[in-house]
């Protein structure tokens, strides 16, 4: 009984150590900073090249897409990162609408190579993963888009239009 117990403990220990090692090793290489546009720009010098995920509102007029090369560039403007603040400001749909209309907010150019997503349009929320290059352009490896109406339209706001 004692012997089995010791064996079990050793086995559990080995597995735990292996799992923790796996987690630490992969965590280190996959760490990603979740930043807003202004947070990224304020720390510009040391943020270059870092793995970052950033969220912003798409400015429709700035979308340039070349279907030959699949090069896609557009600008995104600052929106708050904290969902509590967004809620206090009246919800995501309203925040996106106001941010897209406010030229004084910080904005950044995003470059992405790939098929243009169907949801890329004015006032959509873009969540981009990638890194900032030396020219201050965000080189996105992954591009995720959400419209506030993705699942349902925010009623009072849309009615207000």
């Amino acid at each position, binding site marked *: 009984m004692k012997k*089995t117990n010791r064996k*079990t403990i050793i086995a559990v220990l080995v*597995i735990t150590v292996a*799992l923790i090692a*796996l*987690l630490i090793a*992969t*965590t280190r*290489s*996959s*760490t*990603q*900073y*979740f*930043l807003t546009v202004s*947070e990224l720009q304020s720390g510009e010098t040391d943020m270059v090249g870092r*793995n970052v*995920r950033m*969220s912003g509102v798409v400015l429709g007029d700035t979308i340039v*897409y070349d*279907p*030959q090369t*699949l090069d896609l560039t557009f600008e995104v403007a600052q929106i708050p*990162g904290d*969902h509590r603040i*967004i*809620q206090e400001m009246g*919800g*995501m749909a309203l925040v996106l609408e106001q941010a897209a209309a406010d030229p004084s907010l910080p904005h950044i150019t995003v470059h992405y190579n790939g*098929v*243009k*997503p*169907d*949801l890329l*349009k*004015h006032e959509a929320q873009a*969540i981009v*993963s990638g890194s900032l290059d030396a020219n201050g352009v965000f080189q996105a490896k*992954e591009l*995720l*888009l*959400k*419209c*506030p*109406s*993705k*699942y*349902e*339209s925010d*009623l*009072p706001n*849309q*009615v*207000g239009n």
Partner: protein
Amino acid sequence: MFHLGLISFAAAMLAILIALILTVFQLFKHQTALTKPITTLASVSFGLHTLSLLTLMAMQVLQDYSISYVVSVVNSAMPTILKMTAVWGGQAGSLFFWGWTLNLVLFISLHVRRQIQDSWSFLFTALNLLFFGALSLFAENPFSRVWMTESGDILEGVFSPAAGATVYGGISGFGLNPLLRHWGMVIHPPILYLGFALFLIPFCVAISHLIRGESDEGLLGETRLWLLSGWILLTAGIALGSWWSYDVLGWGGYWAWDPVETASLLPWLTSTGLLHSLLLQKQRKIFKRFNFVLILLTYILVIFSILITRAGLLNSVHAFGESKISLPLTLLTLTLFGVSVALLAWRWRLLHSGWELTSLVTRDAAFLYTNVILISLTIVCFYGLAYPLITGAITGTQIGLDRTFFDKAATPLFILLAILMAICPISAWTVNSVRQLGKTARIPLILSILLTGVCYFFLTKSWLALLVLFIVSFGLLLMLALTLRECKSPREAAKRWWGQRARHGAWFVHAGVLLIALGIVGMEGLEASIQGTMIPGDKMPLRSYEVEFVQLTTEYENPEYLTIEAELVLWKDGKVVDKLFPGQHLYEDRGQYVSIPGKQSTLRGDFYTLLLDYNSMMGYVTIRASDNPLVNFMWIGALLMVLGAILAASVPWKSLQLGDNDQHERELPVS
């Protein structure tokens, strides 16, 4: 209509509340059997809840725009089936629908032949149901109406938000987002929800057993069918989501480690482990504690998964956005967790079961390894999900993990799992018959090595893909060889096969997983694509295929959108094999495009084309073409998993005993 829906919903919740209070009185009198009034009230509640759901559906179909939920998910151009299923298309409606599935599951549990509810388990089931009912009633009410005040402002509320306000039905519906107008939307959410909900009953039964201090084997037999059916629907639901996401561009392919996808995988992983270790408890009387932990954990992870989907804590394509119900859901998750831990700690000694793992190479050991890997995967996925939340709470800025984390951390574990599944049939045999087994395993081994060699020269040089291909082909061939070995006379073989259908069902499930692995290798390792701009008559080569552009058409075949379609002819080896019509639907009101891929699907794989850009004046198009070999094995594999599990579920729990009559080749029911 509004009154019917709201009042029947409120009455349904009231009925459950009364049943709950009666149950509490029962428990004070130390009576654990459910009385007739309680079950009657629960049935009445289900009936009223169903009536309420049907009313909401009817209002959607009839486009009653005085209901704000109807305005947000329905418009006149949507087909009736989508108008009905828009119940789960938005936040309020899908929460309401989830509550209904819980009530459905409660109803079934009270009316199946083997009734497994007692007062304690009913108490917890009803509490869960009431919690979600209350969220729907007080926080996210699907029956909320649109009001116009005297000053002309438009507001939203169940009841009049201001004096003199009148119900206003003048806003025409927005309709579901075009990306959701797909068959996937009709079937994926309800199947997934029902799968989730079915885990509630085993959870409550386990809680009841812990409270009453009962730890007999009865629990297992009672919950097995619930767990299996939950698992089957969950598997089907996840696979359908994956298929939908592959079929619609913009959802990120078949699997993207999106937080919501990952969260739905968590209860799947733990319930898969549970199905394995339940069998060991049945046959060997071990793993009792482990099983209790897994039953409780599975439902807690279901709630956690709902929290992730609805709270808007993490960025995800699926998320409903920020919501006021995130706090109550967090509290529910923590409460369930706390209650479970406390009860387990209280009864820990009682749940003791002997530990008698005799050797590290037996079937029991293989089950143990399987569960160790499944639990490790659960930890990896949970860690990846929770990491940004934890760092956010500690440091203020969220530091997360990108999807390479999941790829890197989960791939080795999944490969280990595939190896175990491939050699699983071997473990059913004792050491005595190793020689006999060697004979059967030799041919699959040689064949799979040959096959891997061929793949190395003609398909891929990636060692990872080759490793998976080797494991998959060996596993599949071994199962085939072992099944064929018994096929001396067809009739007898069929009879034996049916007699051992629990084992063969499990093999089907494993073969299904291996086929999915094959599909993943095809998508990740063997895919090739090309894009180019063409005028009519141009051809574009890809592998042995050629795509020829014929013409571009634009027409209003549907009042809501403009259909732009490219007609392509697909050539293979100099012969016309198919016509493809990749296109785009332009929703002009929304300014939104929805890409409709044109594809040729065969067992070999998909030839997938997309219309990226077009110029109807100049008549040119830009097409992206991809050759996705083996991808359809993913869907075949998922189907096989579901069918295999149904096959295994058809075996009564009682007959899953370990047969000791044949020592040389033990006929283990499931391996």
